[in-house]
């Protein structure tokens, strides 16, 4: 079974990396027309 430290790393790792990526993609999405440039 995964130990507590490994679970915490998996969750925090995805929060930071996945969350960061999602945030920047959301900003890009908000800019609308700039996707065409």
């Amino acid at each position, binding site marked *: 079974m995964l130990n507590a430290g490994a679970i915490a790393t998996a969750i*925090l*790792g*995805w929060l*930071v*990396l996945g969350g960061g*990526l999602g945030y920047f993609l959301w900003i*890009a999405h908000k*800019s609308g027309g700039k*996707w065409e*440039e």
Partner: protein
Amino acid sequence: MARDRWAGRYYFIMAAIGSAIGLGNVWRFPYITYRYGGGAFLIPWLIGLVVLGLPWFLVELGTGHWMQRGAPGAFEKIGKKWEWVGWWPVFISFLLNTYYVCIMAWALCYLIGSFTLPWGTGVAAAGTAGPYFMNEFLNITPGPGVLGTIQWPILAMLAVSWIAIFLIIFKGAKIVGKVAVWTVTIPWACLVILAIRGLTLPGAVEGLNFYLTPNFTLMKDPEVWLAAFSQIAFTLSLGMGIMYAYGSYIAKKADVTNNAFITSFANCATSFFAGFAVFSVVGFIMQTLACPIEEVTASGIGLAFITWPVAISMMPTAPKVIGVLFFGCLWFLGIDSAFSIAEAAVTAIKDKWGLSKAKATGIICGIGFLMGILYTTGAGLHWLDIIDRAVCFYGLLITGIIACIVVGWVFGADKLRVHLNESSDIKVGKWFNWLVKIIVPGGLLFVVIYGGFMQDLAAPYGGYPLWAASMIWVILVVTLVLSFVFQYFKGKKEEVKK
């Protein structure tokens, strides 16, 4: 002639992600993470991303975007005497590509080999995969001084890989972006399938515990910070002249900063995810062979061409399919990095002499293939190791240091910052100036000195004979001299339109 342009932002982002994500995401990051503190390693690694990786990324992408030129042309516009600063990373990355494409050729050979598993079947492969790779596949010689014979299957796959690179880039950035959508998506899909397969194998959880369990006591060790900064420096395809070229194809009014952030985070998330695929399989091998993790974990070529083939042969179901998926994944991970590196050189000579894209691409791919023949010989692995040390360690980092100093102090970090902020959604603060001027060059210098130079000064690199290890310095000096020579060649200017 109007400047070549990406077909759209989406295509640029995919091409940049494809360039950044490469073999190192799969074969280096998971091992480094396990070795330097598991989950705790992510802290210095993410700090390295913010203080080192992102500013360096913005320097390359932003300078290329502003000057609308590849690396040499961009530095020539900063000042005629600085053009060599752009040529040096182009030469360095071109040399890197000559062996990188050869590793892709190995992956193609192993992909075809997956149908017959020539490295051994079942548990017995644990004893035969290593000797097969070294003795039968590479036919390795005792040292770099004995070239041995050319391995014809590798040479054939080398030609296939270079032809693929030529076909992808010779028509320009629009096609590159559209191809990158596939060359990024396919390895992502392969990684997802491999991770699902890995996580459902017996022993996978034990492997993940080794990968993820944090060991915070190691955080006090400077070696951990060195490893984290090195990993960030190598993972974003920086110091190769690529991002100047890619930035030069972005429309003048388009976003730069957020594109760099998206690319960097996508790259790092892929590394983190790849660790799940790699270490679940490591756990499976540990349990099946009842051996300690030290005997199973490896990084680089050993992980890809010895450890994974062993795991593939021991798979309870469909080992051939897993083999095709894994080596196909490696080839696709490599191809978009390889064509982006070739693109840096193509853009540089196209900008300088006004050659057609097809002609410039043909020249670069032809020379790259001919030079790559060295790595198909029995001494190929020795030379790969030596040249990798010269270009992928010293070359990328030293040229990165010089580029940041020239952009930060000569051109002016603040001018670049203002330019980035004019067209980008995310505004960069004045902290950027100090990162570019001091922290990035200082951090890279720290990695050069303590990550390699001190060791190489004490003893010849890799235990090679002194003459062979000295080639590291010869390569650096020769590429530097060539950079100055190319600076003084007369070129033909290309008109840049918005």
